[in-house]
Each structure stands twice: as C-alpha cells, then as structure tokens.
C-alpha cells in the first residue's frame, strides 16, 4: 500500500508547490543526480528484461531445429541452465567477474552472494546497493546467454544431469573469468580490447564451449554414416520451423536490450546509433545467408537464413557502438555468408554435429565481428578506437585478434576439462536406446506432442 501511493505524493508535491516538495529536502543537483540514476535504472532493468526474454528465443530455435522426440528435453535444459546459472552467478559468478579489486586483472574477488560493505561498494564504484542490484540484474542475463548457447549444439544426445552440472560451471566460473578480463577491468581491457556488448565475451564463450562439448560428445546416431570407411553426411531435419522462426524474432527483439542496453546509461544518446547498426547488420546477415544458401544449395534455405539473421546480430554485437551504418551493413552481410561456410565446414569436413548451428552463429560470426572492430571502427563515438579501413592502422586489429585468440584458448581448455570429466563419469551421453526412443521419454518420461502422429524412422 505504501508503495502504491508513494509516487502520487511526489507528483502532487511537485505540482502543488511547483517542485518545492522536492526543493524542501533536495537541492536541484540532488534531483538531477537522482534522475540520472533513474534513467540508468529504468533503461538497464528494461534492457535486462529484454535480454532475459532471449532465453525464450533460444529455447524455440533449439526446439524447432531438433526432433519432436527431444523437445521437452531441450526445453528443460533451457529452463534449467538459466535457473541454475542465475543462482550460480549470484553466489559466485558475479564476484569473480566484477568483484573489485581485480586479482592481477585475471579474476574478481568480491561480492559473493551479493554481499557488500560500504568499502567494497565504493571499490566497485557505487554508493548504494540499488546500483549493485541494477548491474547484477543486467549482467546475470548475459551470463545466462553464454550458458544457453551450448544446449543447442549438444542437443538430442546429452544427459540432462550432465548438462545441469555444466550450466553451473559455465555461469559460475568459466564465463565470469574471461568476462572479467574484458568487462571487469582485466588485462584485455587494459590492452584496449573492444567488445561492446559481447560478440566474444558472451557469444564466443558459449560457442567455443559448445564446440568442445559437441566434439567430446560425438555426433547424433545416424548423422554421419560410415560405410566402408567412407563417411556420408545425413540430414536430421528439425521438426518445427515456425517455432524456430519465432525464436529468431524473439532473439532479434531481445537483442535491442542486449546491444543498446550495453551503453549502460539511459542518458547516453548513442543508444540510437547502436539500435540502428544492430538492425542493419541483422538484416544483411539474413540476406547474406539466404543468398549464399540459394547459390550453393539451389534454394533459399529457411533454417540457414534464420541462422544468418542471428549471425548478423552476433557479428555486430562487438562493434555496434563504434561502426557506421554502412560498416554494420557490411559486417552483417559477411557474417551471413561466413555462418553458412562455417556450418558446412563443421558438418561436411570436421563432422562435428551441431544441430542448430550454434557454434557457427555464436562462435565463427562472433570472432568475425570482434575482429571487424579492428577494421571498421570509425572513431566517431570513441576516437580511441579506429579500425584499419578508417586509417587507424593495424593496432586495434591486433588487439582484437589477441582477444579472440585468448578467449578461444581459455574456453577450449576449460571446456575440455569440464566435459572430459563429465564424460569420464559417464554423465555426458545418453544410451543409444534412449537416443533412439528420444530423450523426452528416456530422461523425463513424457511425450512433447501427446496424441500427434509422428513418423519417426530416425
């Protein structure tokens, strides 16, 4: 109730006394300071909500591009990697990523379970918990994004319990550490590495873990058939294209929170610049992938075009704030082409089975986008960041490459250890019989589309 009438009073006060209600206890400067915080508060919480909603997008894309017999399982994984991950990030992850002081630029050390003192708060750079909660809220959804990328690449064959354990570790440990290097004021930040909203920090981290995961896990039964030494690649079509498309639209929608929200300030007028470059790159990404699939496969491929839009989004995420609209158009378009090449390379050459193209979308396109900062940054929003094509020389480019490689190396090693242990413990892959029957029945004892006649010869 108190809450319910709270604002009314203020407003009345303001109107009645022409703001004197404020004036009485607050100086104009204090009100302006409060408003500045209010802008950031509203902006970041709404952006965080949008980024949270991307979880629904991932769930739909991954469900749509896999088979009906595994739909409930993939959905449980998406629900649980956020739930378990959020708790892990609250308990540990946040502290390792943003807990000042940084231990040698490699890891944070403070704020476990979001417990703070005045000192630790000001060490982080704020003066009350509201700012801490605000920033945690905005960061936890990014951690969850990195975590959930993996479920798609490892879909249709990964044990549920193994996946749960994995989620806790990536959100609580793996992601926060490399995150600290870039966004926590760590060594990559010191180097001048620029990744505005996380092409590398978020997407590539998830993707490289996914790459290692699906490699360690092995392909789905029937995906790569070995007939006398010769491997033939089979298609395992997803069961629900409309859901997959819905997922992509949801992700694109949420991305406005992901990228524009990363201004971290509601009074930063470059928000529109970020939204514009994000929109253009996603569009050209879809176009690039559509054209590539058309020319290559003979017909414009829906699931690949959907991947293209996502690749455009991932690709622009690093440079969205520092490249021009034209730069975004080019980065996105190339990301759309690259993602198709990457999907084909993984599938036909490396025979690494990534049912939804997560590694290519978030990893390959993410790396491209991060490096593209070193090529297309125009120095307008940040004179300190100028790319090769805008006369900035190769310096920034070099740093971007270093960042990409460092994170790649780190995540690959960490993921190898994590998935290696899970595999050794027999917690990674379901039995062949269960895979055949479907993980919905095997892992959860349910059917996802009860009553529907589904013809499963695979």
């Amino acid at each position: 109730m108190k809450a319910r009438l709270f604002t009314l009073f203020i407003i009345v006060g303001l109107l009645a006394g022409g703001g004197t209600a404020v004036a009485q206890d607050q100086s104009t400067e204090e009100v302006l300071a409060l408003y500045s915080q209010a802008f950031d508060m509203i902006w970041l919480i709404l952006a965080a909500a949008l980024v949270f909603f991307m979880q629904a997008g991932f769930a739909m894309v991954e469900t749509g591009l896999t088979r009906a017999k595994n739909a409930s399982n993939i959905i449980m994984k998406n629900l649980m990697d956020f739930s378990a991950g959020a708790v892990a990030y609250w308990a540990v992850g946040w502290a390792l990523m943003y807990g000042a002081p940084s231990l040698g630029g490699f890891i944070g050390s403070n704020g476990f379970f979001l417990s703070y003192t005045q000192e630790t708060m000001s060490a982080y750079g704020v003066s009350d918990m509201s700012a801490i909660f605000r920033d945690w809220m905005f960061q936890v959804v990014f951690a969850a994004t990195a975590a959930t990328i993996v479920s798609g690449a490892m879909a249709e064959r990964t044990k549920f319990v193994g996946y749960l354990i994995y989620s806790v570790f990536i959100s609580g440990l793996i992601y926060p550490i490399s995150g600290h290097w870039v966004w926590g004021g760590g060594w990559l930040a010191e180097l001048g590495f620029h990744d505005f909203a996380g092409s590398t920090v978020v997407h590539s981290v998830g993707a490289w873990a996914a790459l290692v995961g699906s490699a360690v896990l092995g392909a789905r039964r029937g995906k790569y058939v070995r007939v006398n030494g010769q491997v033939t690649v089979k298609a395992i079509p997803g069961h629900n294209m409309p859901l997959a498309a819905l997922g992509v639209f949801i992700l694109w929608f949420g991305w406005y929170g992901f990228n524009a929200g990363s201004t971290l300030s509601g009074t930063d007028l470059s928000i529109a610049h970020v939204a514009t470059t994000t929109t253009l790159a996603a569009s050209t990404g879809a176009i690039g992938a559509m054209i590539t699939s058309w020319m290559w496969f003979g017909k414009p491929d829906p699931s690949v075009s959907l991947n293209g839009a996502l690749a455009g989004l991932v690709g622009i995420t690093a440079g969205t704030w520092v490249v021009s609209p034209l730069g975004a158009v080019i980065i996105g378009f190339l990301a759309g082409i690259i993602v198709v090449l990457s999907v084909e390379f993984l599938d036909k050459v490396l025979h690494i089975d990534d049912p939804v193209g997560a590694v290519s979308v978030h990893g390959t396109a993410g790396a491209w986008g991060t490096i593209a900062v070193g090529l297309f940054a125009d120095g307008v929003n940040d004179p300190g960041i100028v790319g090769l094509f805008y006369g900035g020389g190769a310096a920034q480019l070099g740093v971007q490459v270093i960042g990409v490689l460092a994170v790649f190396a780190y995540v690959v090693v960490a993921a190898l250890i994590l998935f290696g242990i899970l595999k050794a413990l027999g917690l990674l892959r379901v039995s062949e019989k269960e895979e055949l029957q479907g993980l919905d029945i095997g892992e959860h004892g349910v059917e996802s589309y009860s009553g529907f006649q589904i013809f499963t010869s695979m």
Partner: protein
Amino acid sequence: MKLIIAYIQPHKLSDVKEELYKAEVYKMSVTNSMGAGQQKGYTEHYRGVDIEVNLLKKVRIEIAVNDSFVQPTIDAIVKGARSGEIGDGKIFVVPLEETIRIRSGETGNEAIG
C-alpha cells in the same frame, strides 16, 4: 464379399468420394499413407544436405463390399482417381470372409452396408 484397398493421390480423395457416392457406395475407411512406386520422388535439402524423398504422400481407402458391388466400386475409384499420370495409384481386391456390425451384431451381406 470383398475388401477393396485403394491407394490414390491425396488431392483426388474428394473426387473419388463423389464418384463412390454416385455408385451408391457410402461407407469407407480412409487412412493417410506413404507410397513408393514408379512415381519418382523429389529431393529436399536441409542445411545443405540432400534428402531423397521416395515415400510420397498417398491416401489409403478401404471398402468392404458385396460381390455385386465390386466392379462398380472399382470403376468409381478409377473414375475419380485417374489423371493419367504416374502416381495415380493402385486398387487391390482381397477376399472377405465375414463382416460384423458391432452395433447390431448383424453379419455378412447386411452388415456391410
């Protein structure tokens, strides 16, 4: 009594039903099925991988009739289903020894209609 089984193109179902009605055959059972025959399939692509589809969508009709109705029923199906193109389908006639109407327990010829 015979059991007539016909495989036809799905989009011919309504025409076949119409012809059957004209031939005063009102009772039938229909199931969706997939068929491989002379009609060659087509190729689908999924994420760059080809899928040879040679089981094509067909509709399976099952009709139990008295002997006197066999020919008219076959003619009606052919009339409704024929387009002259490969894939039109087949009709199979199987001997039917007994028919029981569950509701009434009637058997034989009067159970069929």
